[in-house]
């Protein structure tokens, strides 16, 4: 069963949104959330928790925080609460996010 077959396309969803996931092309329907797009894409893990276990979207309603992902450079974004946008760059996270470091801090 293809992961996409788990999802019905709403009648008002016309067109395709183009994004990247870790630099590779990913498409979604307008009006999808990032979490829905990731599940429809492969259903594979979309991040690793602090102790290295695999995680992906679960509750789809902003509660469980298992869908955290880096969106356009902003880590720990809740994928299920974020709508897809053309050109969006998604990155899977491994462990806890880091902090923006100054050169002096490197």
């Amino acid at each position, binding site marked *: 069963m293809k992961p996409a077959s788990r999802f019905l396309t709403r009648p008002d969803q016309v067109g395709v949104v183009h994004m990247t996931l870790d630099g590779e092309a990913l498409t979604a329907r307008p009006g999808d959330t990032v979490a829905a797009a990731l599940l429809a894409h492969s259903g594979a893990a979309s991040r690793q928790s602090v102790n290295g276990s695999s995680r992906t979207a679960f509750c789809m309603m902003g509660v469980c925080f298992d869908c955290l992902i880096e969106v356009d450079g902003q880590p*720990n974004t809740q994928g299920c609460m974020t709508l897809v946008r053309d050109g969006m760059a998604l990155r899977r996270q491994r462990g*806890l*996010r*880091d*902090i923006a470091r100054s050169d*002096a*801090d490197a």
Partner: protein
Amino acid sequence: MPAQASDTTIIGGGVVGLCTALGLLQAGRRVTVLDGADGDLRASQGNFGLVWLQGKGAGFAPYAELTRDAVAAWPNFAAMLQDVTGTGLSLDQSGGFEFFTDPVELADFAADLERQQAYLGNRFSHEIIDGDKLRRMHPQIGPAVVGATFCAHDGHVNPLRLLRALRRAVLALGGDLKTDAHVTAVAEAPGGGFDLTFRDGTRHGTDRVVLCAGLGTSSLAAQLGFSTRVYPQRGELLITEKLGYRLPFLSSTIRQVDEGGIQIGGTKADAGPDDSETLDVMAGLARQAVSVMPALADVRVVRAWGALRVMSPDGYPVYARSARHPGAYLVTCHSGVTLAPLHASVLTDWLDENSNAPDLEAFDETRFAISDAA
């Protein structure tokens, strides 16, 4: 007649009450701890987890001494709790900063530390660090910081794990811990000892009673003839998402929890019993944290809360024995985490009136009567 008797009953199941119980249990006493209801004001569940010496007792030498003793006793105390309960507290005593953006406030605090230094002599050390030197040590510090003070004795623990470890330790040593045990009345029993009445009307008898009820202290204190009244002082706190980055410093207003979140706090407000958080204070906390460390600007705050400090009239601890009702004691303080090792050890000697008991005369509530009369 009381329904049952136990050696000592502690009213209050927070950090102070549990520590007091733990010390008595280790001395072989029978102890009952009465913990209040979930809706009660619980400073032990909302605090910052500092084990802090810097600035403590600058105007009151006995408090400077007491705090110094407590800080020194923390490593063994944390190790004991880990042995008894298997719970690690993530104690880190590698020193702490106070950061300043106002040079006048820095100068005032530096003067406080000079007084504390004079009291404690070689049992204390502190440094005043100007902003540029500070940024050479810690390049993360923002340009708005004009300077800092540093005390090598300061540290922090995970305060929620401390509370859990204390509960486990009290149970492991045979203490009787009653939850949802809200005491509404306490009186001397006709045949000696004390008779406590719970909200549901049931009663509990005890030989001795130690009042450690935090913000619930005042009404019971009056019933036992104590003059001490405590008042709430609200602090608001933020915690960020967990970071893989390790914050290279500890301060009294910005600290990283061992699990990775950065906790930001330090506000003080008189808001009565209202422990809710407010948007303007939260925004101010965030601004202050970003001015201290600009890289925090893109880190999300995931939770905010208000909590109420337990303050005595002069802010210092009260250790009082009732003159009118022998066997009744009152223990209250703001710094229940920092002072925890003493409450679990030498306070036992004071309660048992052992010959080696510490002199806590300076912390008796008579000091309030004197200042009232003055």
